[in-house]
């Protein structure tokens, strides 16, 4: 509906409209999946695997609760991470970390968003659900990626959020057929390209088109991270109790 409205007066949709439509692709109420990351640093490979559950809340299902439980590597086995994220940009997300070695559930803050996620090429901010209006989106044109037509969207963080991100901008290539990302170029604060994410493994699961594989490459560091999601299922009616602090401990 938003796209249609936007299309009445313009030959092409605006960048924000495209991103809103991309945001609507996953309209699930909840999701369960396993994820595995392989981080390649030369010939060294680091392997991380985790299980995650997400459930949407709020009037427009825009608030989100996520539980991630780490399986590998061995030294973080059973570490769990619970977030309650709010669509309202004025409201702080709630986050807790369960550290099994210390038998402790600990509230944490979003201060580490710019840090690497589990020593990978992904930053913590890359795995969080970023609200469409956290950035100003500009349609820069169309381009083929892997032989498929994509919208090219330049996304620049809102001024008040610039301090919380590693990036001066992201250039997102959004597939015109699926409204899923094909590629994202991340630019550092000096405006130079920092890393690139390439997406694929597109699957329709429970009626929802889903990216199941992606690759983050950081040429400067000569590293890359392969990420695969599996065992995905949507709308399973996940219990509220799964997303409580009391569910974090062993």
């Amino acid at each position: 509906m938003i796209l249609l409205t936007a299309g009445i007066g313009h030959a092409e949709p605006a960048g924000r409209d495209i991103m809103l439509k991309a945001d609507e692709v996953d309209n699930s109420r909840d999701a369960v999946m396993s994820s595995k990351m392989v981080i390649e640093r030369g010939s060294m490979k680091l392997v991380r695997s985790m299980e995650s559950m997400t459930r949407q809340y709020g009037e427009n299902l825009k608030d989100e609760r996520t539980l991630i439980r780490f399986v590998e590597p061995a030294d973080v086995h059973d570490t769990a991470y619970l977030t309650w994220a709010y669509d309202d940009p004025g409201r702080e997300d709630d986050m807790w970390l369960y550290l099994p070695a210390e038998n402790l559930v600990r509230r944490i803050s979003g201060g580490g968003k710019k840090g690497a996620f589990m020593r990978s090429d992904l930053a913590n901010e890359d795995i969080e659900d970023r609200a469409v209006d956290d950035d100003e989106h500009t349609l820069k044109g169309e381009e083929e990626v892997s032989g498929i037509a994509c919208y090219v969207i330049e996304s620049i963080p809102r001024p008040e959020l610039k301090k919380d991100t590693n990036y001066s901008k992201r250039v997102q290539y959004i597939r015109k057929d699926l409204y899923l990302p094909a590629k994202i170029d991340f630019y550092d604060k000096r405006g130079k390209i920092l890393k690139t994410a390439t997406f694929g493994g597109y699957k329709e699961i429970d009626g929802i088109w889903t990216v199941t594989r992606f690759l983050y490459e950081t040429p400067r560091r000569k590293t890359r991270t392969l990420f695969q999601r599996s065992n995905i299922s949507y709308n399973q009616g996940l219990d509220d109790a799964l997303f409580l602090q009391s569910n974090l401990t062993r």
Partner: protein
Amino acid sequence: MKITLPLVGRCTGVSAFGLTMGLLVLLMSLPAVARAGDPLPETGPNDSRVPENGITGDPFADDSLFSSDFASDSAEALSSGNRLRLDVHGYVESRNRLRLGDSKLISTRQRLWLEGQAGFGIVENVGAEPPFRVFVSGAIDIDPSAADLSDDHDTARIYLEEAFLTVDRPGWNAVIGRKIHRIGTGDGINPLDLINPVDYRDPFATGRSDSRLPVPMGLFTINLPVWGAFQEANLDVIVVPLAKVNRLNSPGSAWEPPGLQKLRAGHDAGLYILEDQVKPDQVFDQAEFEVRLAATLSGWDLSLIGFYGYLDSPVFSREYRTGTGGMEKLYITPIHPDYSAFGFAFAKGLDRSTLRGELAVKPDLPVMKNDDSLPGYTRTTVMEGVLGIDRTFGTNLYVNLQYFLIHTSEAENLISDTWAHGITYDVHDTFFQDDLEAGVRGIVGFTGQGLSLETYAEYQLADNWLFQGSLLFFEGSESGIYGQFDDNDMVTLRVRYSF
């Protein structure tokens, strides 16, 4: 993992130094698992592939990049239905501590740690854990250097650490068994974390935190209904059938306080009789209880806590008894009187910071007197508060500061001052693509407690190896809680392989 068993076997009976060096040489001689900086494989995602899903333009459609490293995971873990799930993990570690003052190895601990968990029962909801779960952890420790110092340590020890059963039902869960259960939001000092005693063999986990021992307990948690701004509410009830308290270190231990050494010296000189520590020993009659009502309310974690139990650190009662020949003799006995505590704790995330605090009131807390009057201790009201904040600067520079304040009523004739205060701190950053973490942490008392200061660096190699080095310093007068270990400045080297 298969290297661990022969390694432990070889360790028995060799010297501490040889043991340590042997382990390090063995660890380092294993094939290098990785060489950072090697060129990346020549695979790339640039080409469109034949679509498995009817979608063109999928750069990963042919599986060449996501191959053996991504063998299909079992879907069982997240499904519903009857399930049996088993996990075993652990590590093998060489941790060695050299006391700087006399260049003496005070610990050459070689450890094989194992922990396992099993879940079983019908999982009614997708994503939920099995309703019945068992967790067991234990270790084999070999520490000839510590065993040479005192009776606190055996040369080799096989022990059970935690072992508990969790019953997880809708709306409530129960944990029964031997467990460490930490309470509080503060860092380093938690006035209401009163259940588990300090590990007398290794009291300092870091320069800022202590180590605790598990105790047999029952922990019952009820999820309470929430409304309005309440987002989560729980009631925890903890019952420890027999209170467990801090054990006094044996003579010669690196952690035997100077005050205790002097008491023992007085006993040896015949000035008085220092009796054995009297610990709670009546099951149920000397039980401990803690109740915690916790809620999350508009981004605040709030909890009210009540405790009844036995003092972990002993007071020394003084009593004259008539002995043979009608002579009166002074008897000094380490005892653990009962007491109560009440308080609250909170935590709140603020942008890039987290605010944490605790306040505890301990009416009628047993406190030692500073003179020779009988019975050696008295009871008074003690209030303890902590308020701390942490913040991440830049990408990974983490700073954590916490102020603590203790007020002791009617302290004129007590060993405690009316006011005591200080800070705990932790500052660290990461380097080399987060493989290296380095920082400084500790506790500083402003009213005679002394200080602890630990500088440390830990390097993670690949997924399984951890190399850690630290320097831990204590400063202050020997009457201070940290200053009393002024002679224990030490360097620690640790190598760990996790599996």
